[in-house]
């Protein structure tokens, strides 16, 4: 099955959920749960917590599927944001962040081969984001990576990279401004 038909299959199933179609939720689950479980597991670092949050995510999909608008977002964007947000909420609630190893600027390497697993997102979108991330300073990229993949707060990142909190805030803000400008080119 090609990428576009998979994407439209997920979008079509999401659109059937508000009418109470449980089989549609199951379809969404079959097609997306491995990716979303990977996201939860990456942020939470612990299987039992990640399983709990994954359950919350799909129960939320069941309740909020009417909010998904295929004209505005791709279904995977919507689902990944939901999984990240729920995982981050859980991380903040438990106050135990397992991903706190010091970050050196030089150890800014992806944990898996870039683009190795793009089954559900467009390859071009990933390549474009990567191109723009490559244009950032390595300390900026490392800070964004810690936030996106490890669910780190400003405070966590300042500790991991051993800089004052104010410095971390301006690194992140500057990095996001550069990223947006690059992606809009």
């Amino acid at each position, binding site marked *: 099955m090609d990428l576009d038909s998979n994407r439209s299959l997920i979008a079509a199933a999401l659109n059937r959920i508000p009418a109470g179609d449980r089989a549609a939720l199951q379809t969404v689950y079959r097609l997306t749960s491995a990716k979303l479980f990977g996201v939860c597991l990456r942020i939470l670092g612990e299987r039992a917590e990640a399983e709990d949050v994954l359950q919350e995510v799909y129960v939320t999909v069941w309740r909020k599927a009417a909010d998904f608008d295929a004209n505005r977002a791709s279904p995977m964007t919507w689902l990944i944001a939901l999984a990240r947000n729920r995982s981050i909420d859980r991380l903040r609630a438990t106050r135990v962040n397992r991903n706190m190893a010091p970050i050196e600027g030089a150890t800014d390497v992806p944990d898996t081969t870039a683009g190795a697993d793009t089954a559900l*997102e467009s390859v071009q979108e990933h390549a474009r984001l990567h191109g723009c991330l490559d244009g950032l300073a390595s300390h900026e990229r490392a800070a964004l990576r810690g936030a996106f993949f490890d669910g780190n*707060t400003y405070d966590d990142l300042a500790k991991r990279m051993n800089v004052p909190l104010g410095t971390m805030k301006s690194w992140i*803000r500057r990095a996001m401004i550069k990223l947006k400008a690059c992606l809009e080119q």
Partner: protein
Amino acid sequence: MSDTLDHSGLPEDDLLAAELALGVLEGAERTAAVQRAARDRAFALLVEAWEQRLAPWAAEIREVAPPPEVWDRISSALPAETTRNGLWHSLNFWRGLSLASGALAAACLAGLIYLGTLAPRQALVATIEGGGQRHFVATIDSVRGTVAVVPAAFSADATRVPELWLIPPDGRPRALGLLRADQTVVLALPPELATLAKNNAVLAVSLEPPGGSTTGLPTGPVIATGKLTSL
């Protein structure tokens, strides 16, 4: 919306949206930003735009199959099933056919029961129903290793085809083959599946793209199910 500019040129709201989407906020700051996104549409759209910019990064995260019990927990957390299922609700015209199709299905079932009496020891039958309609009647002949499926009230869909699945007590669906709305189909039942086709195993029909599911699992909606019982 505030249009205060940061020293570097992005509106403060856009930066706050970026921070929320990235996940660096915590405590009261995060709560305030989440609440604002819930009531301020313009701000929510800024957050969505940032989520969209960042989401492709998730391609680097390895997929991990969750254990099967997670789905069971999700399924039991959903509200009890209603009869006003979306698919069936949209197919109102079927209701007019219900009397005729019911009679037809009953006739098919009677025929299968009659056939079944010829080989009473090995035959299993399932009436495959959904949305208050009987769609197919299936008979398994475990000696010959076949499943015969007679259409009752199944109405074809222009874009999707019905696919038959065997769901043994382990809950994992096994593909049996594609069905027809207009004629009886006899499918082969390999020995490893024949041993799973027992009393109380379930036959299910899902709607799949032409050619059937390519994933080994149903990808479209399961529209009808029926329990196997010995004749």
